[in-house]
């Protein structure tokens, strides 16, 4: 796929702990700053197409024995607001099952000279500029 790095703003606009939805044409991307590291995923849940990036962002309860509950994955988990499916924002993986068809679409993030850019399809970047 022909992709380009598309600038979406300065690093000041995506401070640590922030979650922001940016629009590039019709594409919506959620940008999350997890302890200084930026992650970008498409704002579209693979389940029913819901606005996954508007869901709760935090930790979750990890697999454990029935006798104990273990909280973890701090700020790595996004819960889709429609049906609460949980995704790891750092990998895009669905938590309840390993399934390539049900992963969040991730966008590579590059930070250079104070500017944040995400890798997106060229045609989307071009139609947004038009």
């Amino acid at each position, binding site marked *: 796929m022909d992709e380009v790095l598309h600038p979406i703003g300065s690093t000041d606009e995506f401070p640590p702990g922030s979650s922001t939805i940016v629009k590039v044409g019709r594409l919506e991307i959620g940008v999350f700053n997890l302890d200084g590291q930026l992650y970008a995923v498409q704002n579209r849940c693979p389940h*029913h*197409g819901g*606005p996954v990036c*508007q*869901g*709760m962002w935090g930790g979750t309860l990890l697999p454990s024995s029935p006798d104990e509950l273990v909280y973890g994955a701090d700020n790595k988990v996004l*819960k889709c*607001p*429609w*049906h*609460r499916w949980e995704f790891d924002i750092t990998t895009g993986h669905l938590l309840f099952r390993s399934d390539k068809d049900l992963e969040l679409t991730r966008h590579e993030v590059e930070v250079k000279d104070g500017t944040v850019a995400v890798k997106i399809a060229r045609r989307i970047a071009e139609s947004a500029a038009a």
Partner: protein
Amino acid sequence: MAGAQTLVQPSRSKADFQLIDCDTHPTLPTGDLGRDLRPYLSRGWAERLEGESTPGLPSGFFYTPTGGFLRRELIDERGRAATDPGVSAATLFEELKVDRAVMIVADAINLGQMPDPHPATTVAGAINDYFIDRWVGQDSRWRACITIAPQDIGWSMAEIERLQGVPGVVAIYVPLNSSMLGSKLFYPVYEAAQEYKLPIVTHITLSGVYSTGMTIGAGPSVNYLDYRACQVYPHISQISNLVCHGIFETFPKLKFLFAEIGFPWLVDLMWRIDQFWRGLRDQTPFLRRPPSEYLLDHIRVATQPWPEPGNPEHVGAMLEMIEADRTLLFATDYPHWDSDVPSRIAQQIPEHMRRRVMVENAVELFGDRLI
């Protein structure tokens, strides 16, 4: 007040309809009954109901996920959704292209579990007036149910009489409680429903929590997953109760819509009830036909929640088994958190059944009042 306004009906025939939604949940603005329903209550009742709400989940009973049952993007600053008819109309009628939406008022869902018939009937009546006035009155694409109170059948009869002729009313809504639907206590309601050609609508309720409500089964649910897995059981029991009392022989024109319990459970019930009837026919000699036929003739079910099995072809098989082309009605369950998007549901229904489910079964059930 209800009945006072003239509705302007959009001029179209049912052939123009593309989508009927048989389960939406308009909601009172704050949930404080005295405040929200004030114009529709006497002064005494407005004072008595100040700060009161209809039964809901008590605290400490399994936390509700994602902040509740609502799609988060629809939640307003008060933490509620579907409180504004204009906003809801924009979503349902404009965005999702629903032609008619049947309202099952959120605040009335558990009304049957109020132990005191006085506030129950007062609230039911005021809710009927409020939503006919402010929702149907604002947009003639909304359709209302007459919420009755199983705690007081006499009042319920009068309420049906009062509202059955009001434009926009399409059904009688019974908020289920521990009363069994096959009981003779309900006969006057069924007589009226039959006479006025109004279907009876029920909805999934809070169960297994209050003694006034239905039990879940063996015992209380341990957590929300357990609850969602088992919450259909008391409704299956109610449906079996209707058939086994011979309600559909006594009231051959009566029809029920059981909303928000989905439909795969119907396959097991049909097979099981027929299987045992073959040897137990003399227990129910008033059933002239196999019990499953009464189910398919008189019980309607809604698409929500749409099943998600591993193999989607299995859903198609189930749709054939339950004769979905006559029994199944589309529903969004707007604005609840797992509400179904029309296009995604439609594409999973075999083409020869699709329009039946998305439009025609609702037109058949609700009749001309829907149009």
